[in-house]
Structures are given as C-alpha cells and as structure tokens.
C-alpha cells in the first residue's frame, strides 16, 4: 500500500473525504429533528397545561440534555430503553416496586403505576409518588410534595425495589452462574481441556490466579480467596461492559453498588486477618515506642480508608466515563452542523474505545487491590527482623 508509511496523512485524507457524507446524513436527521422539536414544543405546551404544577418539564435543549444525563447516571425504578418525546411514548418495561412503610406495612406493585413519575401510585390505601431524584415519597391522594422541588421533605418509605441497577446485577449474576457452571461441566466432559468459550475465559481465570492472587497473597493462603477474586473480577467486568451497551445500565457507576463490594472486601480482609496484621496496626514493630502511639490511629484509619478508596475509584471512573460519553454524544444535538456531528462522532468513538479498556482495567484494579489487602491480612511473620 502506498499510503501505509504515512498513516496520519491517510487518516486525515479519509476524514476529509468522508465529511460530505456526515453533512448530508446530518441534514436529513436535522430536519426530522427540527420537526420533532416543533411537535415536542406543542406537546410540552399541552402537558404543561395539564401538569400538576410541581412537575415542570425542562424546555430548552441544554437543560433537557442535562436532565437526560442526570436521569441516566441515577438508578431508576423502570427500565426505559428509549422514548419518543413527540408522541410521548416510553419504550421499556416496568420493574417491581417493593416498599416497607412503618404505618401501612409491605407494598408490592408495578412501577407502571407511577406512569413515569406523572401519577400518584395507590397501594392498600397509601399513596406514593416518584420524586425528581428517583426516590419514592409517601404523599396524599393529590400527590403533594412538601419542601422544595428537588429535596422534598415527605416521609420516605424503606425502598427495597428491584431497580434498574438491581435488575442488571441479577442479570449478570445469572449469566455468570450459568456461564461458569457450564464451563466447569465442559472440562469434565473434555478431559480437562477448555472448549468453546472456555478457551477465551481460561487464560483470564489463570491470569487472576497466577498474576493477581499468588504474587499478592502467597502460595499458602491464596486458595481461599480465589472464589471471591474471580467472582468480583468477572462481576465488575461484565457490569462495566453491559454499562457501555445502549441498554443504559449504570450499575458500577452507582455508589451504593461499589460501596457494597467495598464492604464485602472490608469484612473479608478483617475477618480473615491473623494476629500479625493486627499487631502491625496497633503496635507497629520496629519503630520507637512514642511513634507507635502516633502510628496506631493512622493505621486504624487506613483499615477504613482502603476499602473506601476502592469504592470511590470504581464508582468515579465509571460514573465519569458515562457522563463524558453522553456529553460528547449530546454535542450532536447542540451544534446541529456537520462539523459538530462529525467531531462528536469521532470523540465518542475514541472515548468508547478507551472506556472498553477502562472497563477491564477497573475490574483488574479492584481485584488486584483486594488481593493486596487480603495478602497484607494473612502475611506471615517476618523472621528476618535483623535487617530492620
């Protein structure tokens, strides 16, 4: 190939050649979009007349995009795949709502009763309304929320619903269960040789064992942690990858999900720790006695900070990735020109590729650091104290 020794020039030339395609493709969608917007403006005018007052929909484009991104990164009580704003239709499916209220007890009903936050749901004589922050509040029959619009002061019932994040986690858990169960069976059938999709997963499982567990935890103790490390690795990886699909799932970018994972790591670390680990926390060997009193609280704080940083790292990485990606896609609707759209396409393509890498990297980092903490908890006493 003639152009292969000048890859950059080639890419630029192809881009310039493709620009007319972008622009002509864009005009068509733009006119459709403009039409849709016009009808949407009518629809908004219509709904605002009918609205209950506190349910003011965002009207201009930027705040609409903002609301959409905010809605995406939050957990939701229904699974919405896409929506037709002009027709006012939502495509998706409702999820079960499970509420525990102190006065009226257990409530189980479908989230379709909320009608995407527009209606007041009635169950066993109690009324519930979905707030703007995707939380459920107890109200009266008219659905009045006290306090300001974004932070109502109504009573919040205990919400045990199968939300979007819970649903996606259950989905991944079932997928993983059947995938790895099937793989385990296929090894027996094939006489210990990987077959099918196992050829893809076997090196990864071995990598987690040989390059994450054994070097960090040690030959002697690594086996009892392997089940957790493998589970958490594949769980985070699959959830991250599913979060990049157009399904609109954002489970690992939800701080409650990562907090639960971090709490599990915290308990495993501290419940399997030997006396050597606690000795290093409360009475650090090999330092002068006054220093031991200063180091003990710092080390004790470190016990909590370690899983806390695990939680923040995974959450913030995925959360930030989703926001950046959606903002870049939203550029298309803000610029409404061939230049903006092609820029948005290129940037979102590049960021998507990076996000696929980040999905794997974050699963790896989480597993790696968990293994590091487990390794510190079961580390044997050093006998070569002489060189300290």
């Amino acid at each position: 190939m003639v152009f292969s020794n000048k890859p950059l020039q080639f890419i630029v030339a192809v881009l310039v050649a493709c620009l007319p395609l972008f622009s002509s493709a864009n005009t068509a969608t733009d006119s459709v979009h403009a039409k849709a917007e016009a009808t949407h403006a009518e629809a908004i005018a219509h709904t605002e007349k009918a609205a209950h007052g506190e349910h003011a929909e965002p009207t201009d484009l930027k705040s609409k995009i903002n609301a959409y991104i905010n809605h995406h990164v939050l957990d939701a009580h229904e699974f919405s795949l896409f929506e037709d704003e002009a027709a006012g239709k939502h495509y998706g499916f409702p999820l079960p709502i499970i509420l525990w209220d102190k006065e009226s007890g257990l409530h189980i009903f479908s989230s379709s009763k909320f009608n995407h936050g527009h209606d007041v749901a009635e169950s066993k004589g109690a009324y519930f309304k979905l707030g703007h922050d995707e939380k459920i509040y107890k109200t009266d029959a008219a659905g009045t929320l006290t306090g300001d619009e974004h932070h109502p002061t109504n009573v919040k019932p205990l919400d045990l619903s199968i939300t979007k994040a819970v649903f996606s986690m259950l989905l991944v858990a079932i997928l993983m269960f059947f995938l790895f169960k099937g793989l385990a069976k296929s090894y027996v059938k094939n006489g210990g040789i990987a077959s099918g999709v196992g050829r893809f997963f076997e090196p990864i499982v071995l990598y987690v064992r040989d390059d994450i567990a054994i070097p960090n935890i040690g030959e002697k103790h690594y086996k009892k942690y392997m089940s957790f490390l493998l589970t958490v690795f594949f769980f985070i990886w699959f959830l991250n990858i599913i979060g990049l699909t157009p399904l609109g799932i954002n489970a690992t970018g939800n701080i409650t999900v990562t907090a639960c994972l971090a709490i599990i790591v915290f308990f495993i670390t501290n419940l399997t720790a030997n006396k050597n680990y606690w000795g290093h926390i409360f009475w650090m060997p090999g330092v002068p006695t006054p220093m031991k009193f200063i180091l003990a609280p710092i080390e004790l704080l470190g016990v909590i900070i370690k899983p806390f940083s695990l939680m923040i790292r995974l959450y913030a990485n995925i959360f930030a990735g989703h926001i950046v990606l959606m903002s870049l896609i939203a550029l298309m609707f803000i610029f409404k020109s061939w230049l903006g759209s092609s820029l948005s396409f290129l940037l979102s393509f590049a960021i998507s590729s990076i996000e696929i890498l980040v999905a794997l990297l974050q699963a790896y980092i989480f597993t790696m650091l968990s293994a590091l903490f487990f390794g510190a908890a079961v580390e044997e006493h050093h006998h070569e104290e002489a060189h300290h």
Partner: protein
Amino acid sequence: MDIPRIVGAGLVVIGAGIGIGRIGGSAMDAIARQPEASGKIQTAMLIAAALIEGIGFAALFAVAEN
C-alpha cells in the same frame, strides 16, 4: 458552583495528572532499561496510578459536593 470550587477542582486534576504522568514516564524509563521486567513494572505502575487516581477522585468529589 462558585469560583474557589472550580479552581480547587482544577488544582486536583493538575496534581493527579502530574502524579500519574510521572509514574507513566518512570515506568517507560524502567521498561526501556529492563524490558524483561516489563510485566512487573506494569503491575506496579497500574497500582500506583490507581492509588493516585483514587485520591484525585476523592478530592474531586469533596470539591464538587454541594
């Protein structure tokens, strides 16, 4: 969001960026010097980068929190 918060967020990102950049650069040097140890160097690099990133994100959230 007021000005000090924005400046604080910027400082956090600059600090974390310098830190991760230095780790990456040093890892490159180390790999160039000892290519056979590249696996171990990469692992150590990723852990160090992840720790700095965690601190950076924590500070960023503290800054951005209303």
